[in-house]
Structures are given as C-alpha cells and as structure tokens.
C-alpha cells in the first residue's frame, strides 16, 4: 500500500514524542537497505542543512525615534551604509555593502575586510555598533544628524531578510584563462589549476525537494541559528530538471526568500566573509525539514552525492562574458573525492560551503523536532515547481 501521511499527523507525532527524524545523510543508507516505500513508512521528517556564503542577504532595523525627531535619510552602521529610503528610523543593510572609504580593488586583489555581512555578524554577537545618520530636516522631523552607539538589544526590530538564499545547486568554478582570478568562487588558478564548488550536495535543502512539494511560503526553517520562515520564491527562482548526456540529471535553479528575527540568531551561524578581489558578504546557516508525506518525497530526499550533478563553468572567460555554457557535469561524490576529470585532466577540487557545518545544522534541526519544540508548518502557498517559473531574462539595453 502506498504511503500517505499528512502534516497534521506528523505534527501529532512530534507532540507525542514519537516522531522519527533522520538527517538527509542518515536517510540515504536506510533507503538503500529497506527501499523507498519502507523508509517512507518509517521516517516522518528528513532534515537538511547548508552553510555557505549567500550574497543576496541583509537585515532591516527600526532604531527607535530620536529626541528631537529625525527622518534619517542616510544611515551608516560601523561606517557601512544602510538603505534608509524607507521611513524615519528604518533602514535595510545589505550583506555586500562596503564602507565608503574601502580601497575596493584599487590595489587588486582587494581585501574587503569589512562589510554589511560583518555588521550583521557583530550585531548578532551583541557587539556595540556605531550608528551615524544624517537628514535634511523637516518641520515634523527637525534633527539633522546623530552619532551614537547601538547594540541589537537597543533596537525595536532587527530582522534578517534575505531575498535569495539556499541556491538549489551551484556552478563548479574553473578558470581557463592564463592568469589567476579572484572571484566569489574563491581564488581560481589559471589553466584549470583548481575547481571550487559551493553546495552541501546531499544535505542541501532544495536538492532534496526539487519539485517544491513541501517547501513553500510559510515553511518554518532553521535560519542563522534561530527560527525563520520561507516568505517567497527567491530572486532568480527558476527550478529545472535536465537529463544529462553523461547519464543522470541536473537539478538546479530553485531559490528561496527567507526571513527571521535577527535577535534570536547566533553569531556562529551568521558570519561576515571577505572574498579576496571580490567583496564582502554573509555566510548563512540554513536548514529545512522535509516532511515525508509520501514515497515520491522520500525518493528525492534520499538522493545521494553519487546521483547529484553540478555544472562546471569557466569563470575566466565564459562567466564574466555572460556565456555560462557548462564545460561538463560532475557529481558531488566526484567533487568531494578531491579531484575531478575535466577534458582529460585531473583537476583538484575544494568546497567553499562547509559540509561539517551543514551536517551540524541538519542534526540541530533534527534535535529541535524530536524535542517537540519545532513543529512543521503547512505552506500557505507552494512555490513554482520545475518548469513552472518564468524563464530568466537577461537585461536588454535600450536607447533611453
């Protein structure tokens, strides 16, 4: 008989302490041993995790009103500008913003030692952060300048809001040019000297629910060490499943927009990063529980690194030119082995997202669910599934 479970049934099992939760790693040998049907009957929830740099991230704040009142038109936190074109004392800080006086790439490769992601990390670590704001002054908001120090606990609201996180899959970056390049995929040596990849493969949330059967608007998740929610499809969301000439299939293109209370997040799961020659950003710890409602969901949740492919892309010429035609496809098992074979050559590989941390996130989420403190939420609406999203357009330049 086919396995069918409802989310309400799974939540009832969480409350009664009978829920069976495995991480996306642990479920793989179980399915190999017992088959998808038996495993789907036994397991209620599979937890996933990823800990990688996710550029489209940021946080918004309400600082509280000043006396006399001020409509802040420009705001800096630790010298990093936040967007203040919202309301009097609201601002949004982007993870990749850098200080006005940063040397950038004037001496290439620039170091980008501090940026928006680092400010978010410092706030979460409950360090004091300088707040500077200027305003033009109005009758109702006369004040024109403030220089003070805040901590996250001083703020009325501090909310992590990331427009694009948890990229379903990602390019393996190589460099076919004849010089070392410095990218968001790390340092890439010339003539395919190395290959860098950046997902947690078999632990990665959206690779384990490629049809978005369970992950939708309102899904409760692990975000930055606290609880967060999926609020929308992420920017550039366009999930696809492509059969490959090499055999197997490429699952890629899905993304999530996520939100959560920054005040309850933890500095070890939300870390500012500096990519040499590229810029500053934020590494986000994110984990999603997948309710095993039926066998199809279990089938996808239990795919292993041997079955999950990633495209290899040249960042020396193709990617910057906007021609990301893959050079080939490799599995995460090959990537994790330390070398991949490309165009007849052995190329050493290195990850950029932390697999040990991803594993820890899946384990923490598993504990939260088993302890009864984390119930699964029914999506308010599902996100566009494979072939349901509008294909992505590139920007067309027109005469103004």
């Amino acid at each position, binding site marked *: 008989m086919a396995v069918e479970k409802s989310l309400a049934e799974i939540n009832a099992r969480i409350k009664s302490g009978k829920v069976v939760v495995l991480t996306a790693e642990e479920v793989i040998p179980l399915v190999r041993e017992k088959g998808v049907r038996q495993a789907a009957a036994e397991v209620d929830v599979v937890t996933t995790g990823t*800990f*990688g*740099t996710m550029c489209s991230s940021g946080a918004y704040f309400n600082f509280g009103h000043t006396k006399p009142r001020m409509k802040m038109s420009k705001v800096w936190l630790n010298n990093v500008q936040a967007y203040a074109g919202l309301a009097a004392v609201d601002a949004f800080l982007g993870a990749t913003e850098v200080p006005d006086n940063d040397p950038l790439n004037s001496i290439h*490769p620039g*170091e980008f*030692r501090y940026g928006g992601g680092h400010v978010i990390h410092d706030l979460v670590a409950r360090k004091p952060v300088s707040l500077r704001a200027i305003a033009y002054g109005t009758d109702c908001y006369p004040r024109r300048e403030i220089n003070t120090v805040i901590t996250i606990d001083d703020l009325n609201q501090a909310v992590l809001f990331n427009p694009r996180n948890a990229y379903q899959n990602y390019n393996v970056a190589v460099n076919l040019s004849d010089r070392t390049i410095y990218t968001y995929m*790390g*340092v890439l*040596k010339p003539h395919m*000297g*190395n290959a*860098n990849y950046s997902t947690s493969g078999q632990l990665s949330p959206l690779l384990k629910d490629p049809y978005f059967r369970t992950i939708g608007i309102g899904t409760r998740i692990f975000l930055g060490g606290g609880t967060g929610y999926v609020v929308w499809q992420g920017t550039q969301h366009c999930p696809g499943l492509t059969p490959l000439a090499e055999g197997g299939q490429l699952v890629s293109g899905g993304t999530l927009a996520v939100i959560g209370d920054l005040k309850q997040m933890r500095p070890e799961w939300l*870390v500012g*990063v*500096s*990519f*040499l020659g590229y810029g500053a*950003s934020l*590494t986000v710890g994110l984990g999603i529980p997948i309710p095993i409602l039926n066998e199809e969901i279990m089938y996808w949740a239990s795919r292993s690194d041997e079955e999950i492919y990633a495209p290899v892309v040249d960042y020396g010429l193709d990617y910057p030119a906007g021609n990301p035609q893959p050079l080939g496809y490799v599995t995460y098992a090959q990537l*994790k*082995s*330390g070398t991949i074979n490309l165009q007849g050559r052995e190329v*050493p*590989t*290195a*990850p*950029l*997202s*932390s*697999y*040990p*941390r991803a594993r820890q996130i899946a384990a923490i989420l598993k504990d939260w669910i088993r302890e009864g403190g984390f119930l699964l939420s029914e999506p308010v609406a599902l996100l566009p599934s494979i072939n349901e999203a509008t294909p992505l357009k590139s920007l067309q330049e027109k005469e103004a």
Partner: protein
Amino acid sequence: MSPKRVVLRFMAETADKPIIYQLIRNYDLVVNILKANINPHKEGMMVLEIQGEPEQYTRGLEYLRSLGVTIQPLSQDVHRNETVCTHCGACISVCPSGALYLERPDMTVNFDEDKCVVCLMCVKACPYKAMEVRF
C-alpha cells in the same frame, strides 16, 4: 639531520649580503628558499628549509645571527584560529604545500603546521580570516 624550516628577518643593511652563498659554501648546508621578500635598503624576510650536519647547521645560524639576522622556527608563524574556522575549504586549493587539507569523509579542514611554508596565501584567501600570522 632532517630539514629545518626557519624564518629569517634582517635589517636593511644586511639585505645586500650574499648570505645564502655563505651558508652553502662555508657550512655545506642544503638551502631551499621557500619564500623571500627582499628589497634594497629595506627590512627583509626569508623562509628557508635548511639541511646539513647538525654542527654545521648550528654554526651557520650563528653566522646569520652575527649579521643581526633574527631567526624563528617556521611553525610559529601561521596559526589557525579554531573558533573562527568554519571548515569551508576555501583555503585548500591555494595552499601549495598540502599543509591545509580535507579529512575525508568528514570533510573537516586540517592544518599540518609542519608542512606550512608560510606563503600566507591562506591568510589572504580565507573568507573568515581564520588564518592568522604571528610575528
């Protein structure tokens, strides 16, 4: 004697002295330059791997000290801040000596200080700034 790795730091006045030549000729040492930063009329540093008879090695180092060169064992120079490292792996491919490597199947990043040649590439490439230089 097994090869020893040392960091030499010297004053501007010493920068034009042919110290490597002297080490090889007078003390019969095998010298491998792992890293050097030497500019005319400026302070300089050099990382050497030195092999030879223990007595000659000691005398060679005495010669360097007599020129005002300070000598440190290499392993003290690059340090991993364990609380900052997230075991992402961004350092693996830039490390030329295999001192930073992935422990499989756990995929944790290990640092073998004995293999470190203090090129400092990891210090620059680490997105989390977990690799620190100690002078």
